[in-house]
């Protein structure tokens, strides 16, 4: 197990307004996020020695890091592009942290940008783009619909019970998002609205699916040792875990469809590195990958927030609301803040960073003295999970 805990710190972050940014191109979004981060850190572009750049929906011929280099005019530094589905932003951030921890660089940036609304269609397309037929009509909602169906079956929930539980998660996320100025959506919703909305991939309806948004987010990383030269409240990396399941779940022998090894493994690795024994008690907030309502429910259990099969009880009791024992997705999550794929991991980290600094935009959404926060993305069919844990104190 690595010795990265408390070795690196985030000293500045930026995040664009998420949403249908018809006004802004990929390069505008990159500039918006990066310059907020530079200013927040009190650094200039020339201080940056390497850029870890995350974007997903780019041409298949290859784009390298040119989008970041061209838009920001990054001069003769390495720009390393990262494409790891929805976990791209997190993995770019973690690679940036590892680079600083290695001593190769003193100061780097991680930048995630995604411009979904230039593609001309509302969804994400389908499949992994790797084969003519195996995943020919595999959509994201479809794949997560398979999980929901099987989760209900496994734990004996009727479709009505299951859908109502999922609806409560989305009501919570919309309530949180309504207080977030940079979020894509600000409307509060009711359980009835969720249940009556059009079905996208049964049993998932419209409100069970996250927004397709444009956005970008950026982090400036330096060594923990130097961090206080830049600001009095740097945020330290406590631990991380990344895991990829060994096969497309759809063809995987004996796969349960009610729990993912990559979710369990990545969170356990991160807890161990951060010295966390009981995440439900010790974490003060978590930003998890709620691409669909069922994903958030599954994560409650695979991350050890709720006992197996008991997440429904915690949802019913409001354990994951702003006022609950472990607030989850208090910025509205992917559902409400939006999900520009390559930017999402960094956006979640942005929320954890601001909360741990006590700097949420509105006092009504600032948690009381949080110390430890988790950010997580889950990518692909799904198959790949990345977890990062941050704290505002060393030790």
């Amino acid at each position, binding site marked *: 197990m690595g010795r990265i805990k408390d070795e690196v710190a985030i000293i500045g972050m930026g995040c664009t307004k998420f949403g249908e940014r018809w006004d802004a191109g990929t390069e505008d979004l990159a500039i918006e996020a990066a310059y907020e981060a530079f200013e927040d850190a009190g650094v200039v572009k020339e201080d940056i020695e390497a850029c870890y750049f995350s974007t997903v929906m780019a041409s298949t011929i290859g784009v390298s890091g040119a989008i970041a280099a061209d838009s920001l005019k990054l001069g003769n530094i390495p720009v390393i592009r990262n494409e790891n589905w929805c976990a791209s932003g997190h993995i770019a951030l973690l690679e940036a942290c590892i680079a600083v921890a290695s001593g190769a660089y003193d100061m780097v940036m991680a930048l995630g940008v995604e411009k979904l609304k230039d593609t*001309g*269609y509302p*969804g994400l*397309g*389908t*499949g992994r*783009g*790797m*084969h*003519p*037929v*195996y995943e*020919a*009509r*595999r*959509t994201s*909602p*479809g*794949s997560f*619909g*398979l*999980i*929901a*169906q*099987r989760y209900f*079956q496994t734990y004996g929930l009727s479709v009505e019970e299951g859908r109502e539980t999922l609806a409560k998660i989305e009501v919570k996320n919309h309530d949180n998002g309504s207080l977030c100025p940079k979020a894509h959506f600000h409307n509060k919703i009711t359980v009835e609205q969720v249940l009556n909305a*059009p*079905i*996208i*991939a*049964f*049993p*998932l309806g419209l409100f069970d699916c996250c927004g397709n948004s444009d956005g970008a987010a950026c982090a400036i990383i330096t060594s923990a040792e130097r961090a206080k030269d830049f600001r009095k409240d740097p945020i330290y990396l406590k631990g991380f875990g990344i895991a990829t399941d*060994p*096969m*497309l779940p*759809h*063809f*995987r*022998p*004996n*796969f349960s*469809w009610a729990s993912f090894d990559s979710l369990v493994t990545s969170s356990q690795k991160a807890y161990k590195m951060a010295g966390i024994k009981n995440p439900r008690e010790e974490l003060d907030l978590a930003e998890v990958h709620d691409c669909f309502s069922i994903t958030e429910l599954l994560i409650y259990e695979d991350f050890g927030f709720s006992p197996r099969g008991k997440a429904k009880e915690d949802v019913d009791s409001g354990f994951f609301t702003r006022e609950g024992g472990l607030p989850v997705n208090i910025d509205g999550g992917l559902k409400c803040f939006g999900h520009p794929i390559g930017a999402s991991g960094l956006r979640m980290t942005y929320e954890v960073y601001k909360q741990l600094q006590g700097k949420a935009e509105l006092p009504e959404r600032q948690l009381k003295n949080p110390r430890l926060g988790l950010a997580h993305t889950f990518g692909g069919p799904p198959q790949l999970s990345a977890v990062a844990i941050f704290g505002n104190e060393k030790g």
Partner: protein
Amino acid sequence: MDKVGIGLFGSYIPVSRLDRGVVAEIWGRASIGGERSVANNDEDCITMAVESSGNCLKGQGREAIEGLFFATTSAPYKEKMNSALIATAIDLKREITTADFAHSLRAATGALKTAFDSVKSGSMRNVIVAAADCRIGYPRSDQEQAFGDGAAAILVSQENVLATFEGSYSICNEMMDVWRNPEDTFVRTWEPRFILGEGYANHMREVVTGILKRHSLEPKDIAKVILPAPDLRSHRSLVQQLGFDLKTQAQDPLLANVGHCGTAHPLLMLVGALEESSPGDTLLLASYADGADAMIFKVTEEIKKERNQRKLKDYLDEKMMLSSYARFLSYKGLVETVPGEPFRLFPSATVSWRDQNSILRCHGSQCKQCGTLTYPIQRICYSCNSKDNFEEVSISDMEGEVFTFTLDNLAGRSDDPVVVQTVAEMGKEKVRFYGMMTDCDPSQVKVGTPVGLTFRRIYDGAGMHNYFWKCRPVKKGGNE
């Protein structure tokens, strides 16, 4: 060695039917009555030939099969061997003879005669003759109502034959009665009185009379006379003119509830006759197009052997009514509907060729060390990590159950029924298969629904048709 004859047979009729009254009402015309079969929007003559051939060989090893002939007038490719694709999808070995017979409704009987001659000559021990067709009549025409889609397959062999081939007789007659030009979507015809009287009736009468005479047979010696016909009236009058009894001797022409299935029709009716026949029966088959072919078969004791396959009657009974004429037009490619989500698909001739054992033959890999069976073929075992240590196992005939599913409104085209994404556990090894479900009522799908696999055309891209397997509900422990 026995006399050459029919070793096995199988039929296929798509599950969808269109009420002819629906078509008639749209055009303000009279209905010709009954209903017609309609290939689903993921079916074509290739997939239907695969169905009927698979049904013909149900429960049989594929190793012993030495050839496949395919007959159609609606091939999806103008240049490319359709029989090679069908032979691969039904998992025949590579060292076989394949040939396409085309361009005429007599192509199937032509292929069948060639098959009998080939086996008799000793050049092949056996050969499957598959025929399938999806012809389209002009909108508002009688043919639009009268045509159906279907397929049939006959294994010609010299071992354990169910019916012996007694002989054939053919007449060639050049005339422009029914035809399609290369650029035509719809079947063209000359004046009905010319094509039905001078063309169909005269030549069918001549060929049937001729073969009876050559074999010194009288109409009363024939148990079933199998006469494909363009319409019920022509069928009835031909049967009566030839001196057969309509009720007891005429094989059901399948016009009221299926429609004329083009090249496949003679074989489809032959399968129907064989399924209802008894040892000792003499069957007379004739088919028409630019002349006529006739054949005589004698049913043997082998016909009594029970076979676990779907019968023509099963196909006739199990049907789903198509909800509208609009959907029919869209399935036939006559009306373009709003395209669905643009999928990031990757059609590639090289990938399709390299992975054909998984994609077309439906082979998975079974680990020789731990026994784990995985689909598609995996070089490193998922369970025990043993490398390149597997046997290929065909899973296309396996039945299983839905493990999980979703009704995906995003994944479809606008003319689709909702797309059922399915993960199924197949066979006793519970191998996981993921794909779409077809021929189903989405509202009836449940975790645990029994399913089988079916070969379908899933999308067109890069100028080619991409075929793959889908799930389909089956009756548990039934004949499917």
